[in-house]
């Protein structure tokens, strides 16, 4: 009845080695073709258009793009902004995820509800909320006035300082969710082991929790960074003209300067930069596999 199983030490059979049985080639081809064709048309064609448009003048558009005075500044600003937002979001998001799994049930419910509320409502609507908060005579001004702290109108709206909390809030769910799922699948016995062998909270966190959530923090951070590179609505509404991002400059080239070739060249640079960052990060941290 019990046939002794022979296992090779040190060579665990990974599920990936097992071939899916009973799969015909035709089947996988049929299923994957429609979405792949769709990608070729819906993603490939616009990108192709960008490339041809940007090279209409024989590549002059790229030189012109770099000469647009606002472009270089906005490029720097966008990258700095994306980095700052990423760091703040990951730090806050990790604390948020830890708090969700570590708090009593009623508090966990409240924290989850806040997270889901902001995940489910549109970025634009949330940015409107921040505008109302930050307007010179806005809600924050009123709130400070309650304590007698607001003599003059608030100078927060359409400033860099005023832009960051809103962007962090908008991006926060994307940093919380992956860390939360990593925390939920953390090995309980390892936490117990650390406790049993005398480790305090800091050592336990450093030796068990941290290494198990770090990959998710990184992939959440990469996603936030990449999305922040393409940020348009929130900086437009809250940052004002002095805080224009690359997206804003592209929009200006298209709709005001009427130079679609420069807009296309800038778009190519933006898409290219974003994709390079994303693909490198994807190879390094397996970002795509953390989703789903």
């Amino acid at each position, binding site marked *: 009845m019990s046939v002794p199983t022979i296992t090779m030490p040190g060579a665990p059979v990974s599920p990936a080695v097992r071939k899916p049985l009973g799969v015909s080639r035709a089947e996988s081809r049929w299923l994957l073709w429609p979405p792949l064709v769709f990608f070729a048309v819906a993603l490939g064609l616009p990108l192709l258009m960008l490339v041809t448009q940007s090279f209409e003048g024989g590549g002059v558009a790229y030189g012109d793009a770099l000469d647009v005075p606002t472009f270089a500044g906005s490029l720097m600003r966008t990258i700095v902004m994306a980095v700052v937002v990423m760091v703040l979001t990951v730090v806050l998001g990790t604390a948020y995820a830890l708090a969700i799994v570590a708090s009593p049930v009623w508090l966990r419910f409240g924290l989850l509800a806040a997270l889901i509320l902001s995940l489910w409502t549109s970025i634009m609507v949330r940015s409107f909320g921040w505008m109302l908060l930050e307007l010179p005579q806005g809600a924050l001004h009123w709130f400070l006035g309650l304590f007698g702290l607001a003599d003059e109108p608030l100078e927060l709206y359409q400033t860099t300082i005023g832009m960051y909390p809103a962007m962090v809030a908008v991006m926060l769910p994307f940093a919380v969710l992956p860390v939360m799922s990593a925390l939920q699948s953390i*090995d309980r016995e*390892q936490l117990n*082991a*650390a*406790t049993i*062998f005398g*480790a305090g909270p800091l050592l336990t966190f450093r*030796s068990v929790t941290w290494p198990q959530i770090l990959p998710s923090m990184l992939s959440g951070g990469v996603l936030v960074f990449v999305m922040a590179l393409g940020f348009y609505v929130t900086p437009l509404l809250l940052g004002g003209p002095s805080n224009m991002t690359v997206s804003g400059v592209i929009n200006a080239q298209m709709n005001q300067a009427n130079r679609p070739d420069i807009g296309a060249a800038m778009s190519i640079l933006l898409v290219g930069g974003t994709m390079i960052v994303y693909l490198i990060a994807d190879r390094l941290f397996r970002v795509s596999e953390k989703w789903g």
Partner: protein
Amino acid sequence: MTIALSITDVHVTLGHNHVLKGVSLDVRPGEFVTLLGASGSGKTTLLNVIAGLQAVDSGHLTFDGVSMERTPPQKRNVGVVFQSYALFPHMSVGENVAFPLRAARRPARERKSVAEEMLALVQLPGMAGRSPASLSGGQRQRVALARALAANPGILLLDEPMAALDKQLREQMQVEVTRIQRKVGITTVSVTHDQTEALTMSDRVAIMRDGILVQVDSPEDLYRHPVDEYVAGFLGEANLLPTAGGRILDDAAGAEVDGTAVVRPEDLELVPSGEACPAWHVEGAIHLLSFQGTRFRLELLTDGGRKVVCSLPPSIDASTLVVGERARVACRNPERVHVIAATPATAAMVAA
């Protein structure tokens, strides 16, 4: 630095579930006690109570007479081998073993030397630099054991230590763990649902069922003198047959049954049809005969519809045993028959 463990009338409720219903157990210094029971019997909860991972509703727990109920797990100085081993995957084997010393803020040199000493003890010398992922199951278990012993704990707890190993390795590791435990001389409490493991490794085995300890005894006493039918059936194969006046009573209807005889299959032998039968015997039709290497396993079906299992030496001539034919089996040594008296709770040591 081994200690005496004493548990007195411990109750634990998890949610609406009364998991431990008044458990008392004393373990002598250096003794190896195994908690044996089906899943859900509360054995792991009891282990967690000793480790400090589970608070008790009431009852007492002392190490060497010192009360431990209010002591956090970090301060109890216990070593645990977890079911999954719970080795820290991103630390080397040496760092894993030295972890308890790191938690106690011991100097690096001491950590290194203790790790090497412990790895030598579990026969993995020179493995300190390896990563746990590169080890086999048996090696991981040795590392987990080395880590559990590294801080020189007063008591060692093993949670289903063999569950993750395959059968052959399991037998080997049972011997190995026992060797190390004897060598270190540490008080050990183990949890398992594998009876062979319990019998092989322990000085005493505590049978748990539904949150209480049914019987705590040496493996041999448990096997020979079970207090009730549950223990008898739980440990090894047993024929449980009604008795009256020192005989097996197959047709119990109308007769005065005074107990249940526990007869182990290996204590039964065939009685040729011409011979007179000893007092402890039973007759039936051959139902099933199978060859299992070290024995023939013979199954009789008595007239009363009971199944009787009998182990016969592989040297016998099996050709005479035909399914459907009648056969008699008997136990010649009345000492080997254990009778559980019919009135529950009083375990009579009646023999013939």
